[in-house]
């Protein structure tokens, strides 16, 4: 790799063949010493779509493709207590703003959601694509749109977290064969509560639920009590999640609210788990209460909303790293469970999107290039006509020590967009 200004660690250019959204997101990671000052606000340019008020976001159309729109930070913490990719969160911290690019798969999904008939059973959408192409960001875009539109968003940030690395597994009191995961359930309940306060107050239970011998939640109480019960008594958190899902499913057809079920890494529910019971026998995912209830939620036997899911190989268990298509990741069982679904492919950045993202980083003065200082676009591209991967010259970030690039960015992602 060419070196410039004595910084010689840009081995990422040796490995990278094409530029993916994730790769550019890696560039946005601040250095570990944290010595980078926050950037001052800069004047908006035509690459940013105008979203000065709420309704305009709903009007994102093809003409906005490739543009970045801004999510105010207060909204970000309300809508996404969990669920944003880690690198994107760091970018938000760095730039002090959250800019999401409007891309075709997200636009397509939004169009389907806008045109869907809510008296019909919920349609399942499965976002798939190769690693680092922007599936989770597409999901987050849709989640943000739906929460802006006033939907109740049931966002499971990563289903893989529920089938691995679980420290505590309790036998479920409701069903002897199943296992509870109190920690995961309580964490999720906390985040769910943070994002959907309003709904939890309005929606009432339809049945009496007994928590153990003494505690119970009466019929007609707001769902908030169920959630608080789960948070207070961690042992019954998984059952609280189950109750919540059941209630929402039964009440969504009434039309008082729209329900969006957003699951990231849905292939975890039908894969294998690395958890073991006390006798060291492996645990099947369906033996976990959380997974069992979520699977029921993903059936299309309810109406009044939509189900948007993402397939994810990173974080998956026992799946080869080259797998990205629905059948490969879901397996036979998962495919049969989700069938019929609408698959939505997410490709790599198109040249236009890439330019937009690159220009954004240049504007934020994150990417520094000699020729930029001299003026001009600062980047000669060898071939821009075709859809081939662009060859980026080495970039150096002024004044910061280079950081080691680890993780999946160092590996070459798949075909270019």
């Amino acid at each position: 790799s060419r070196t410039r200004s004595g910084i010689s660690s840009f081995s990422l250019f040796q490995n990278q063949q094409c530029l993916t959204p994730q790769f550019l997101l890696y560039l946005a990671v601040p250095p570990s010493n944290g010595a980078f000052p926050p950037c001052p606000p800069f004047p908006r340019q035509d690459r940013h779509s105008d979203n000065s008020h709420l309704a305009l976001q709903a009007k994102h159309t093809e003409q906005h493709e490739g543009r970045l729109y801004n999510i105010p930070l207060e909204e970000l913490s309300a809508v996404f207590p969990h669920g944003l990719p880690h690198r994107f969160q760091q970018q938000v911290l760095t730039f002090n703003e959250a800019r999401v690019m409007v891309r075709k798969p997200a636009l397509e999904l939004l169009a389907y959601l806008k045109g869907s008939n809510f008296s019909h059973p919920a349609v399942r959408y499965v976002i798939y694509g190769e690693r680092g192409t922007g599936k989770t960001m597409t999901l987050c875009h849709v989640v943000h749109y739906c929460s802006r539109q006033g939907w109740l968003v049931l966002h499971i940030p990563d289903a893989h977290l529920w089938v691995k690395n679980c420290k505590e597994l309790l036998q479920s009191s409701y069903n002897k064969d199943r296992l509870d995961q109190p920690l995961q359930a309580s964490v999720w309940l906390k985040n769910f509560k943070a994002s959907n306060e309003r709904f939890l107050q309005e929606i009432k239970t339809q049945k009496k639920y007994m928590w153990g011998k003494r505690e119970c939640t009466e019929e007609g109480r707001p769902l908030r009590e169920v959630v608080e019960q789960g948070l207070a008594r961690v042992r019954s958190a998984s059952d609280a999640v189950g109750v919540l899902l059941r209630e929402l499913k039964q009440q969504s057809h009434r039309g008082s609210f729209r329900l969006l079920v957003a699951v990231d890494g849905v292939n975890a529910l039908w894969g294998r788990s690395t958890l073991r019971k006390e006798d060291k026998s492996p645990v099947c995912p369906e033996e976990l209460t959380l997974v069992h209830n979520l699977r029921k939620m993903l059936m299309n036997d309810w109406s009044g909303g939509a189900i948007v899911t993402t397939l994810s190989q990173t974080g998956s268990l026992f799946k080869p790293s080259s797998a990205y298509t629905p059948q490969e990741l879901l397996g036979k069982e998962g495919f049969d469970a989700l069938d019929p679904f609408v698959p939505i492919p997410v490709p790599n950045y198109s040249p236009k999107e890439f330019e937009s993202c690159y220009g954004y980083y240049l504007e934020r003065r994150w990417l520094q290039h000699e020729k930029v200082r001299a003026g001009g676009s600062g980047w000669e591209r060898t071939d821009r006509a075709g859809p081939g991967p662009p060859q980026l010259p080495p970039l150096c970030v002024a004044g910061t020590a280079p950081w080691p690039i680890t993780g999946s960015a160092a590996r070459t992602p798949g075909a270019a967009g």
Partner: protein
Amino acid sequence: MVTAPRLPELQECLENSLRDAQGGIVGVSVQAQQRSGQSPGCSEQSRPCGVQRGRSGRVRPAGPGPCRPPSRRAGPWAERGGAGMAARAGRCCRAGLSCGALLSPALLSPAVLSRAPATPRWGRAAFSSAPAVSGREGPQAREGSVRRRGRTLQFVRSAAPPRTERMAVDQDWSSVYPTAAAFKPASVPLPIRMGYPVKGGVPPPKEGNLELIKIPNFLHLTPPAIKKHCAALKDFCTEWPSALDSDEKCEQHFPIEIETVDYVSSGTSIRNPKARVVTLRVKLSSLNLDDHAKKKLIKLVGERYCQETDVLTITTDRCPLRRQNYDYSMHLLTVLYHESWKTEKWESEKSEEDMEEYVWENSHSQKNALDTLLRIKASENVSNVTKEELLASEVVKNYRNSVIALKNEGETESNISQYKESVKKLLNIQA
């Protein structure tokens, strides 16, 4: 017992012997890296040294006879001349000097030693030799002269030019190589090189090239030679039936192919146990099988069936005689055919995992699709829609085809997009 001399001693002795050398020995040079075929002088020797040597190989002197036992006489070496030198050098070799020096028998032979100008070609000499007295001995040894080697006289034959130079371009090659024979460089008029090339050089030539001799060659089986074989065998053959003039007709009339092998060897016995093996090949398309029978037959034979060529191969060798094996293979084919037409009671328990290809009917996909459609119809308050009607509708058929393609052919971009379109139509999703 004379102890093995050390190197400097040897060197000293050599230098001493120079003055008194009669046999034309000028010194002993050590080959660092040797290729015996390289030196043209070597190839013209009466005793070609065709042995490739490594650095550390111990070489048994093969050229001028076995190494003579060490002489007990302690006299000056000059008297012994070449023989003494050879003996001494041989003894060093046997004593296993740890310097790893190789004393080549070729070098031990006086003929080469006399060819001192060639010394640099043999690698750097560990024992330096003075090439002083080389010149006068060299030309003499090349011609068919009498050379003195110890007490015996040896006649060195003059090397004749190879036969290749006298070969015509249109000669009858089958008389040069009528049978399988080793590669003879002087008989094959081709400029072949074979072997690992020297650094910065080329592979070694064919003269004295053991690599070419080791490998099997088919110089005796050129097309004209085979034509002659066929002409000779023709007397023992019958006419090919004129009606069978194409492969398809042969397939049609004689679908079963039997393959047997006969073995001939030069030995006292004509029997060969491998001759009893019989291979039967038949295409399943030429057998009268329906769908169930074909699937059952394929499951019964397992690995013996090739999907791409649709050929069933049965190899039998369990009987001692060929005829018995042939009968057995025909019996097997008959039994397979009849068994596959039968349907057992337990075949009704065939499950989804046993299926060879994806069948949409009664699958999860069909169930889900029908359930979804019924729910859609129920939500629109359209009742009295039967399953058969739904199954017969266009959208469901489209969906069915796309799912079958996806499952059977695997996932490709086109398959997935076709599936997507069919689901959109099925669920009536508008953008």
